[in-house]
């Protein structure tokens, strides 16, 4: 397999409504920044991979067709990926596969969501007889899972609030982040409305318009990169069915297997010691401790202790989501790619105010569907 490097990264300013740009404009904002970072132009790109969550979020069927011109893909191969919420991560992986297979030298991966263009609740709620007669949103699906985790682990109620505050304070150091909440405290989180008990309003992610783009190259491109590249050490994806007997939604096996594959590729035997920083897909605050366990950073039922002890804070021993994470910006289709891109920014030393000092190995993580689709990568400051 060929080596692969991340040489360019770009993202938009994320906001609830980006009415100042079209969908193409939004994607170009991210893509042009990634190219600028790589000191490349569209002309240098061999293939474009586009990812986003359901087409109905914008009301456009297969938007890659309309976006071909804007993303400089005319005359080139263009692939459109959709793996539910993990799609941003899968987009990076499909792009990386092209380079790793030796099929393309320089690939542009772009992922976006612009929910303000349509009615996402409409898109998510077609009236179907075999679905339960209650619309409860994503929180209605994930709240019972969180309740099960709280019961199983005995974690104190405050853990979810700690994550909610930590990620929003991190977002203050990220100029692209949607939520900017300088005054957030445990008390404001505790006082926020209980939407889906046990999930409070401030323990959920926002809904954002936004896009992210990365430029991936082969080894030669990495060596000649304009700025320090991030090197791909491992890339893995796993899926499992939505509903089946004995399914563990708190600690899905697909996530465990995916991480095991990833660590084997990257030569990591002790993730807690060997990974310097991770960007995990945490759309509800409680998913931080749950994923810490699922990914092997903590023993079962112990993940919350890392959060409670400040280990996952920006100045902690294992910072999680220094960018502010999904809790601060959530353009759904792009959220996974943002995790992957932020991990790469860290090992490139280009994360700005939310840079983790000396980060050499970083993980990007995304999940989707009913906690059933997983995509992950590990990047390093040096080739492996």
């Amino acid at each position: 397999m060929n080596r692969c490097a991340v040489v360019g990264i770009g993202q938009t300013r994320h906001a609830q409504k980006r009415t100042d740009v079209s969908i193409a404009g939004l994607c170009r904002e991210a893509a042009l920044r990634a190219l600028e970072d790589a000191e490349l132009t569209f002309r240098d790109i061999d293939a474009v991979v586009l990812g986003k969550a359901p087409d109905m979020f914008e009301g456009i069927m297969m938007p890659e067709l309309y976006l071909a011109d804007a993303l400089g893909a005319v005359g080139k191969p263009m692939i459109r990926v959709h793996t539910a919420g993990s799609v941003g991560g899968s987009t990076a992986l499909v792009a990386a596969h092209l380079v790793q297979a030796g099929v393309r030298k320089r690939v542009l991966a772009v992922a976006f969501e612009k929910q303000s263009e349509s009615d996402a609740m409409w898109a998510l709620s077609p009236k179907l007889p075999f679905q339960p007669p209650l619309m409860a949103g994503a929180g209605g699906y994930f709240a019972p899972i969180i309740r099960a985790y709280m019961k199983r682990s005995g974690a104190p109620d405050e853990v979810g609030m700690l994550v909610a505050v930590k990620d929003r304070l991190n977002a203050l150091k990220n100029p692209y982040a949607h939520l900017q909440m300088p005054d957030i405290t445990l008390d404001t989180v505790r006082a926020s409305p209980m939407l889906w008990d046990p999930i409070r309003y401030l323990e959920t992610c926002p809904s954002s318009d936004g896009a992210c783009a990365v430029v991936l190259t082969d080894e030669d491109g990495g060596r000649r990169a304009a700025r320090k590249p991030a090197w791909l050490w491992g890339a893995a994806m796993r899926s499992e069915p939505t509903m089946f007997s004995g399914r563990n939604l708190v600690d899905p096996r697909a996530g465990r297997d995916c991480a095991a594959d990833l660590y084997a590729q990257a030569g990591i035997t002790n993730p807690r010691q060997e990974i310097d920083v991770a960007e995990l897909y945490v759309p509800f605050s409680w998913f931080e401790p749950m994923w810490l366990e699922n990914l092997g950073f903590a023993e079962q039922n112990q993940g919350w202790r890392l959060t409670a002890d400040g280990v996952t804070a920006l100045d902690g021993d294992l910072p999680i989501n220094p960018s502010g994470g999904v809790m601060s910006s959530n353009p759904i289709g792009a959220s996974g790619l943002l995790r992957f891109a932020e991990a790469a920014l860290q090992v490139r030393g280009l994360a700005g105010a939310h840079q983790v000092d000396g980060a050499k190995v970083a993980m990007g993580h995304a999940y989707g569907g009913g906690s059933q689709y997983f995509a992950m990568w590990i990047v390093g400051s040096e080739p492996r």
Partner: protein
Amino acid sequence: MSDGGADDKIEIVKGFIAPVRLRYTVNAGRASSRFLRGLTEGRILGQRCPVCHKVNVPPRGACPTCGVPTEEDVQLGEVGTVTTFCIININFDAKARELPYAAASIVLDGADTTLFHLIQEVPVAKVRMGMRVRAVWAAERGPSLESIDHFKPAGEPDAPYDSYKDHL
């Protein structure tokens, strides 16, 4: 590079309404059709996998873990156990519901997968994991999960955690 800002001289168009109406005919398929017919008749039907023998409900015509077609219908009990739940304080539904309300994952007796449904006839604060609940049929039944109006407490002692911990 600009941050998406517009030329000062041009008044930027921030949006226009382009209504879309698409009509679809739902086609539930073989397994779901049998399940929906069952609901019309006041029966909850699952399907047993010929390989792992687990009973899936609602059935979708395939065992999701074995990847084989499922044919054998199994009538399930109307009583089950709340494995986990949440209490919803915001209205997502077109038809307004009295807030807050509880929605739960319920493993019916005889089934190996959970159904997601409403819990009523009990204060939300009393809903709990392990609670035994019974289906309450709607006055009018049709080929829809709405044929079950909600689940109510079955008046049985709670199920022990170990009995449902594999359904979380």
